[in-house]
């Protein structure tokens, strides 16, 4: 099951996202940008796919560096300038180079096994423990232990997968910075994609002060619990790390 999932991962993802592989003739600029990065860094060139939606996004998928696909939405192509797009594509190419699909598939082995054990134990436990009479009582107790154990494994591996995933995102940001040498462009792209660009205010401080009681609202950013469950690190942290890299390069 897991092997199948991994083997067909690229096709499943492409099919479910509606991504279409595009040729150089259809999207010459996009091919140019990718080729520039892979040529400079001696990476194999992935297939390129485009998804027709206004949502700005990009992803990479594939079993290994040689058979990978990088997909971008038409929304992101409209939103970003060439250098920002280069930063995003380099981020995705780093995912491919680091074999992140494989890493995450392997990481999910435990949770998948635990999940099936939990299911099996649950239904199995009902069948044997309560249906079979007193003779099976001990067996039922054992089953409950299995269920609890599997549940714990599942929860822990769930959290670990998310932690790994967040770590791989940081690694891909770092990789992108190394491939392009311009971390600030990726930071810009991230802000544009998330809409933060609009959040850096252009409204004058003196005008804001005029709105009474505005400053009573405390500036709370991010919650720790939410961070535990998310697959991507919070934007401020990513931007901060990128800008630290920018600072160390200059």
């Amino acid at each position, binding site marked *: 099951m897991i092997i199948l999932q991994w083997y067909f991962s690229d096709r499943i993802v492409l099919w479910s996202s509606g991504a279409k592989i595009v040729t150089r003739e259809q999207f010459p600029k996009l091919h140019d940008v990718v080729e520039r990065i892979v040529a400079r860094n001696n990476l194999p060139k992935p297939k390129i796919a485009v998804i027709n939606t206004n949502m700005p996004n990009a992803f990479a998928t594939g079993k290994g560096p040689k058979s990978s696909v990088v997909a971008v939405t038409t929304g992101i192509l409209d939103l970003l300038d060439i250098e920002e797009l280069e930063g995003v594509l380099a981020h995705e190419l780093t995912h491919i180079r680091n074999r992140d699909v494989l890493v995450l598939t392997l990481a999910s082995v435990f949770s998948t096994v635990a999940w099936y054990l939990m299911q099996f134990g649950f239904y199995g436990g009902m069948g044997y423990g309560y249906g079979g009479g007193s003779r099976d009582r001990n067996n039922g107790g054992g089953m409950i232990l299995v269920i609890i154990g599997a549940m714990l494994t599942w929860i822990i591996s769930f959290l670990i997968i998310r932690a790994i995933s967040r770590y791989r995102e940081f690694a891909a940001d770092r990789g992108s910075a190394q491939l392009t040498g311009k971390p600030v462009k990726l930071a*810009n792209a991230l*802000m544009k994609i998330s809409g933060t660009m609009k959040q*850096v205010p252009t409204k004058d*401080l003196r005008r804001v002060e005029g709105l009474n009681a505005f*400053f009573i609202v405390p500036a709370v950013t991010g919650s720790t619990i939410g961070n535990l469950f998310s697959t991507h690190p919070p934007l401020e942290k990513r931007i901060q790390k990128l800008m630290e890299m920018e600072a160390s390069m200059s």
Partner: protein
Amino acid sequence: MSFFRKFRKSINNNKPKTDSDAIFSLSSAYITLETKLGLKNTGRCAVSLKSVSGMHFSEMKNDIQRFLDASKAEFELSYNIVTDSYGYLWVILQGKSMEDILAQLIAVGDTIQDKGFSSHLLAAVFEFSDEGKNNNNKKHRKYLIYNYKYNKFYPFVPIGQEIRNTEEEMRIMAEIADEIPFERDMTLWYPLWDLPLEP
């Protein structure tokens, strides 16, 4: 673990960090800006506050003037007091050494607070410039804004009519965010357009 970290942080934040401490931390950060980003301080800075009518306010204004007149010669300082279209009073200082103008600016801020107008204080602004020039042959101006309500600095790089250079602002953040009390929440980086600092 992070709960305790937050707890400790909140204790530290409650320590009375004064405006003067925060502003004086610029006396080392401006060197970083110069060496890392080539930003020179122009020797100009300003403090602004909401002006009101009334005897106390004009008394305070006179006090500031008297104080600055007295220290003018000693610190090779010039100053200017203007009111902008928003009704904010600007005390603009120009001097030779960063340390001197910081000290003078802090003293002006203290006078304002002593007279009971601390809630009127809006911001202190510090002007920097690189060697580049824009289309109108005017020098690029970059600013650090100190918000008195939050006790924090943030960058402001205007490049046109209500357009700011966020990239450059982030670059400034990366260089000095650890040296001075810095506003990391970018949604609070409110600009101050058409600053009256240049004579």
